[in-house]
């Protein structure tokens, strides 16, 4: 963040990037010198990043650069990999999430996740969305649960397409619909942060456009971090972009600056297509 931005007074609403919060604002999540090891191999080296709650933050970089690994640190999904070891400090609202005091089940409810491949449960559409609220006890009655399911599906832009067939299997939907169902499932537990791990890589351009539109609509309500291979996508949906390369975070800044005026040569090379 450059100092001259702290004095901006007139936001330009049509440009997503223009709304610049004051520098001293507390970040939603912050990572400080996070490193990840798979056995002896270091997959992530000293990454420090701050994620704010009304912005979309994109992580870009070539395959194997550690961007997905970093994303999975943010809700401790790396816990499921026995050989993975995470060092450094990751905070959610100023509370350390890597400590044993942080309940991982609650953390994952507060920091939801959407995966690369659409992975609805092989259950009905209703059950897919209702599962999270049900296990967390978020509704006290059937009608309340119905309400949560409906509003989640509406926010995910799927309600009109599935309202007449909620009892059909979630796996019977098309790929794009399945991914939106997964987003509905994630927002049904009312998370504070949504992590998206290449959510469009298995989708066609039309479904991708719908998801991107959805990300725009969800911004402001949730802090969103998205990993993507697709640089145009990062430019379209995000306000902040972090470029990863070989396990290091090379550059992090406003999306417009990363794409138009990167500070690092490696970033320049990547976004101009010299490698990756």
């Amino acid at each position, binding site marked *: 963040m450059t100092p001259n931005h702290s004095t901006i007074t007139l936001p330009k609403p049509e440009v997503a990037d223009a709304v610049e919060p004051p520098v001293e604002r507390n970040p939603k999540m912050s990572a400080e010198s996070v490193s990840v090891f798979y056995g002896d191999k270091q997959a992530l080296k000293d990454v420090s990043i701050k994620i704010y709650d009304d912005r979309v933050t994109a992580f870009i970089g070539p395959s194997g650069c550690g961007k997905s690994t970093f994303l999975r640190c943010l809700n401790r999904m790396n816990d*499921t990999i026995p050989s993975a070891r995470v060092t450094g400090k990751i905070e959610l609202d100023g509370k350390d999430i890597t400590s044993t005091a942080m309940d991982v089940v609650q953390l994952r409810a507060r920091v939801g996740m959407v995966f690369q491949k659409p*992975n609805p*449960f092989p259950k009905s559409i209703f059950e897919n969305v209702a599962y999270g609220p049900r296990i967390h006890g978020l509704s006290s009655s059937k009608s309340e649960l119905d309400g949560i399911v409906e509003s989640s599906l509406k926010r995910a832009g799927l309600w009109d397409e599935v309202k007449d067939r909620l009892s059909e299997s979630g796996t019977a939907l098309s790929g794009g619909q399945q991914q939106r169902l997964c987003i509905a499932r*994630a927002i049904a*537990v009312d998370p504070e942060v949504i992590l998206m791990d290449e959510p469009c890589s298995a989708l066609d351009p039309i479904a991708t456009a719908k998801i991107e539109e959805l990300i725009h609509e969800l911004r402001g309500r949730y802090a969103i971090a998205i990993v993507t291979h697709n640089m145009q996508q990062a430019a379209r949906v995000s306000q902040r972009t972090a470029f990863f390369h070989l396990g290091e975070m090379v550059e992090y800044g406003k999306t417009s600056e990363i794409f138009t005026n990167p500070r690092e040569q490696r970033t320049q090379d990547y976004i101009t297509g010299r490698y990756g």
Partner: protein
Amino acid sequence: MNSAAPNRWTADAMRKRVRRRYSSERWFHAVGLGAVALSVLFLAFLLTTMAAKGFGGFTQYEARLPIDFARSDLFLDPATLRGPEAAQTVAGADIEGTLTKAASAAYGPQAAELFGDAAVNRLSSAIVANPDILKGQSTLWLPVSSKVDVAAKTKGDDKSEALVNALEQRQSLRRTFNTGFLTASDSTDPSAVGVWGALKGTFFTILVTMLLAFPIGVLAAVYLEEFAPRNRWTDMIEVSINNLAAVPSIIFGLLGLAVFLNTMNLTRSAPIVGGMTLALMTMPVIVIAGRNAIKTVPPSIRDAALGVGASKMQVTFHHVLPLALPGILTGTIIGMARALGETAPLLMIGMRAFVAAPPHGITDPATVLPVQIFLWSDEVDRGFVEKTSAAIIVLLLFMLAMNGLAIYLRNRFEQRW
């Protein structure tokens, strides 16, 4: 291809290679078809032999016998016959002598051995059911002895054949469905034997096996696959379980004998011990099948559930286990079918005893169908031959019914993704 020369697809060498590929494909096709045909042939042979020999066991020849109870030596008090001890009273009477006398009177002295235990049983229950027949003369159809039955069905000794001819000329012989075979238990007289006792014993034994092996096996599989840390101990346990599945069943019988009978002093010949022994044998099969089924559940489903904040336990029991259930059930069916047909371990724990009364619970002495078949096949009396085949048919039907049920259940639980 990086070589400078272009590939010549029409060259002779290339054509020959293609022809060779096609001919090897045809060969494989023919060999595979041959293997299938051969196994179908064997199966057909087995089933037809079984059916041809076994169906006789489900029928029984009966002879008409006029008895004049008033002139017989049968002295039974009509008052006791109406009381609760009627069956014991009749059992104490000389029913066999009465039959011998009546048969000799009706068909001559060579018919003295026309009737066996089955006829005695039938007449006894007829008297208990209706004591009034003792007052006068009546004509009854009674099952003939095993010797005569064999002579009537196939070829018996000369004396019996002559008797059969004589009876047939007087139209005093008929073939009926042998209900006794399904309702009676083991006996020394082949005309009176039945599979009911063995069937009940099998049912109780399998019940015990299932109740023990299924939950323990599935939970062990779930723990090993989902919760256990990956280390040397887990590896060792895995290897041990794989080895256990390959241990000959007789060894499990010895284990059951040593542990359940000699150390724990449980009842000999009881379905509970048999079931526990078979459970030891079946459990490794279920664990292995269960682990494989759990492994095939896509990790993305686990991620999805973890991602909305499900605990490890909820992931396992809400998602992984239901998705793995069809596979687990398949493994269980295979394990149960093997347990159902098992003889050797049960011989070791005393389930080969002669048990004439059907068991009423899991602690009563009992035998099971495969052991019963083994015992009958060992008998000298020719009457047991067709009973053995008939019992095999009953066992196969029992197995088919069980597998059918299991497959039905499996298909109901099956989910696709």
